[in-house]
């Protein structure tokens, strides 16, 4: 029997404006541990904005948003440290070596056994030969893999992944899969343009329309591939 626990993420009528312009509105959802929410939507639909709000980096303009029971933004400090966020930027200082940059994050998160963890991740991501290379000299694909190492370094309970496969070749995709793949404990929110792959990975799906509204929100089983594609393309459900 499934243990009843409070959801990792709970959103009720969340809205975010930039100036007077609403970029995201009417988002209500819940996500439990071990579940994966996949977010689809055209460019400018507010997918990255949603991810940044969940990461405690942006505050909602209206509505209620909790992560690990912490009311955002007021109790953001309670959730920080349990979140692994992969955005458009790798969040790695370019004038540090890869190992130094990861060590910087490990120290911020007061990670015990940081050196061992860094070695383990660099090996898993196929970057062990790059550990003493300056971050600024890495290729886009290497940088994406390094950013994923940074994102999972501190064993987060919630992964927020914005296009995790971008810049990666098939070997790179295969290398990162064990790092950000589903686990029994970790909840994941994945923003992707890969509708087929996203649906296959999802327990729940959120489709945003071009105006930042919700076109579909519910279990992955409740939406078919063609439906998801048409909702993604802007046809409201």
């Amino acid at each position, binding site marked *: 029997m499934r243990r009843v626990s409070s959801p990792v993420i709970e959103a009720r009528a969340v809205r975010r404006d930039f100036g007077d312009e609403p970029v995201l509105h009417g988002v209500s959802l819940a996500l439990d541990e071990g579940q994966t929410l996949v977010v689809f939507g055209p460019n400018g639909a507010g997918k990255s904005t949603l991810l940044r709000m969940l*990461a*405690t*980096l*942006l*505050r909602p303009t209206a509505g209620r948003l909790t992560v690990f029971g912490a009311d955002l*933004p007021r109790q953001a*400090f309670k959730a*920080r*440290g349990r*979140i692994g*966020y992969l*955005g458009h*930027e*790798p*969040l*790695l*200082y*370019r*004038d*540090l070596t890869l190992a*130094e940059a990861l060590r*910087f*994050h490990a*120290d*911020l*998160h*007061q990670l015990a056994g940081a050196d061992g963890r860094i070695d383990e991740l660099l090996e898993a991501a196929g970057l062990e030969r790059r550990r003493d290379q300056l971050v600024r000299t890495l290729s886009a694909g290497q940088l994406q893999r390094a950013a994923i190492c940074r994102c999972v370094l501190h064993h987060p309970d919630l992964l927020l992944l914005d296009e995790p496969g971008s810049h990666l070749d098939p070997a790179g995709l295969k290398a990162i899969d064990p790092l950000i793949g589903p686990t029994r404990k970790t909840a994941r929110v994945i923003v992707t343009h890969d509708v087929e792959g996203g649906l296959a990975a999802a327990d729940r799906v959120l489709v945003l329309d071009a105006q930042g509204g919700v076109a579909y929100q519910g279990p992955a089983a409740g939406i078919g591939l063609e439906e998801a594609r048409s909702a993604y393309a802007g046809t409201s459900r």
Partner: protein
Amino acid sequence: MSAFRTILFKDLRVELRTLQSLPAMALFAVTTFVIFRFGLDRTDLEGSLAAGVLLVTILFAALLAINRLFVAERDEGGFDAIRLAPIDPAQLFLAKVVALFIYLLALEVIALPVFAVFFGTEAAALPSVLAVLALVNLGLAATGVLVSTIGANSRARDLLTPLVLLPLIVPLMIAAAGAADPLLAAGGPSLSDAGKWMASLALYDLVFLLVGYAVYEFLLED
């Protein structure tokens, strides 16, 4: 390692590796002394004029570092990285204050002897002038980090930082000039006259350190 030490060591490591701030500050200071030396056509300066030349030069050299202080945090996602970590944001404030203080002290270790050679300052005055400059550095660092953080996410940051910072540090500069004037006076330094101004400098430093520590979390929020 504490977040304070982590951020501070990162900043110092990057500066030592890239030399983006210190050489520019030192070059600016030495060039400014050359301009004053020939512009004023004087081989020796004392009292308030000497204090003015020294302090204005240090102030504008400091602006170079203050403008660059958060470039990496802004352009390389450092603000996000630090906000994602379970740390008190005031640790970032303190680490940046100490980093800027160290840059300014390193600048003065280079610039002060050059100033003394160009303008005939007595060697006996230099340690006490350096003590005044240390207090100036602390005030400049505290206000500089606050203003630089505010400006970091603005498109007009290059204008905003000096425009907001300069009025804020007028009291600091008045007190610094008051403290440095008797130390650079003709006939040797007079420590007794500098005391009350140094106390004013220390008070300014304390106020801005406390204000920065108290409000920094709100400056970092969205």
